[in-house]
């Protein structure tokens, strides 16, 4: 079976620094793949390379049979890749439901229309998406008064608007209270399972990762250092090393010379 997303030999340098170094992985149909690693490991760069915000120096990114390298984010979205951001990005000047309608309008290529009232378009579909993420009762509220967790759920609804085959979620639970995190990820998992969507996500919260990831890949200093099912990654000594400090790093003994 062809993977939904396949990444081969992805590399990106900034000035003299290699941010992503020959990374290959794939996301299979229906799986939630978590990308973890310390700060500066290259997770964000990797994400932006897949999402089209950055262009790789080398390597291939394919969604099914489509080559994504060099495409702008909007084309990648049209091919079926939805995205949520680490710091939520919503349209502040629109209500909750209008945010979803905006995505639907764009998806149906009706953005050039000058006369119809946008708020009357695709109302049912927008409300259905909101209801799926549990935001129906907040449909007409301003985004500026939403709780942070609700903003994240709105982003999820927006990302689902174009019936994506793959979701890219950059730290979906960052900045949330622990209870909210669990709830959001539970919601995400159930939606993607029921719709057969695959997910690639980065995450710092290991509880979230181990509870929801089908597989995990670990990045360190731009390189892929481990990959596998959660139990295997957790047991991997090299991963332990990255997270708990390198045993190989000799430090001065307790008392100063």
């Amino acid at each position, binding site marked *: 079976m062809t993977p939904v997303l396949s990444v081969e030999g992805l590399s990106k340098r900034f000035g003299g620094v290699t941010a992503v170094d020959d990374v290959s992985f794939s996301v299979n149909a229906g799986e939630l793949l978590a990308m973890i690693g310390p700060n500066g490991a290259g997770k964000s760069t990797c994400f932006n390379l897949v999402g089209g915000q950055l262009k790789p120096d080398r390597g291939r990114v394919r969604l099914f049979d489509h080559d994504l390298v060099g495409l702008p984010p909007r084309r990648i979205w049209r091919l079926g890749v939805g995205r949520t951001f680490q710091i939520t990005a919503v349209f502040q000047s629109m209500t909750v439901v209008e945010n979803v309608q905006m995505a639907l309008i764009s998806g149906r290529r009706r953005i050039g229309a000058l006369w119809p009232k946008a708020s009357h378009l695709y109302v049912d579909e927008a409300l259905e998406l909101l209801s799926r993420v549990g935001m129906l009762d907040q449909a007409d509220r301003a985004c500026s008064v939403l709780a942070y967790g609700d903003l994240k759920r709105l982003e999820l609804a927006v990302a689902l608007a174009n019936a994506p085959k793959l979701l890219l979620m950059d730290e979906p639970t960052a900045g949330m209270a622990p209870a909210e995190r669990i709830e959001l990820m539970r919601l995400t998992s159930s939606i993607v399972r029921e719709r057969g969507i695959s997910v690639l996500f980065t995450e710092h919260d290991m509880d979230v990762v181990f509870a929801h990831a089908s597989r995990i890949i670990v990045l360190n200093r731009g390189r892929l250092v481990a990959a596998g099912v959660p139990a295997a990654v957790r047991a991997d000594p090299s991963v332990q090393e990255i997270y708990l400090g390198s045993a190989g*790093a000799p430090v001065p003994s307790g008392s100063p010379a």
Partner: protein
Amino acid sequence: MRLEVHKLCAFCGRAQILFDVSLKLERGEVVALLGRNGAGKSTTLKSIVGLVEQRSGRVVLDGRDITYAPTAQIARAGLGYVPEDRRIFTELTVAENLLVGRQPPRSGAPAWTEKSLFHLFPNLAELSDRPAGEISGGEQQMLTIARTLMGNPAALMLDEPSEGLAPLIVEQLGKAILTLKQQGLSILLSEQNLHLARAIGDRVSIIEKGRIRFEGTMAEFGSDQTISRTFLAV
């Protein structure tokens, strides 16, 4: 110099990053602030020096409330901050970077000169006239610490200084930090590298998801394996 942080909260937009973080740093001690990625270590340090706009709580430096003082004043009061991402002035030379950090000497803190810093970080001496953007990551890490020391701080906050450094460099760094400790500096060290933290820390605070989850001496921390397993391990 004594640093007290009381119920610090910090926000990024409407996302809350820190929840009532309290810390104490006594004169001449090294406190290791440990936590996983994204736990809130960097935000804690940034909030203390006033680089996070939305914050609440209280930060007291030697009895003086500096919670809402301008960042430059906090630095001049003797609290040095070494950022995680180094933030070297890449277009300035190594020597110029040091010059930016220079402040008059203060009583109760070691007075640094360019020369004494080159003694502490020997690699930097020969790079003095090189653009800082061209030196290696490890050298930049030394430079960012040296630059802050030029302000003759009485307390120092280091944000993940070992990040991305080769083991040999981490060793040099550890030695340098120990030297500073011996000279009476109070040091708040945010780290993920447990070995470095163990080697130089007196006390430990563990932060997880924006909350302090453990406080204790290094001995207490070391004796209880479950603590590091629970809050730090994968």
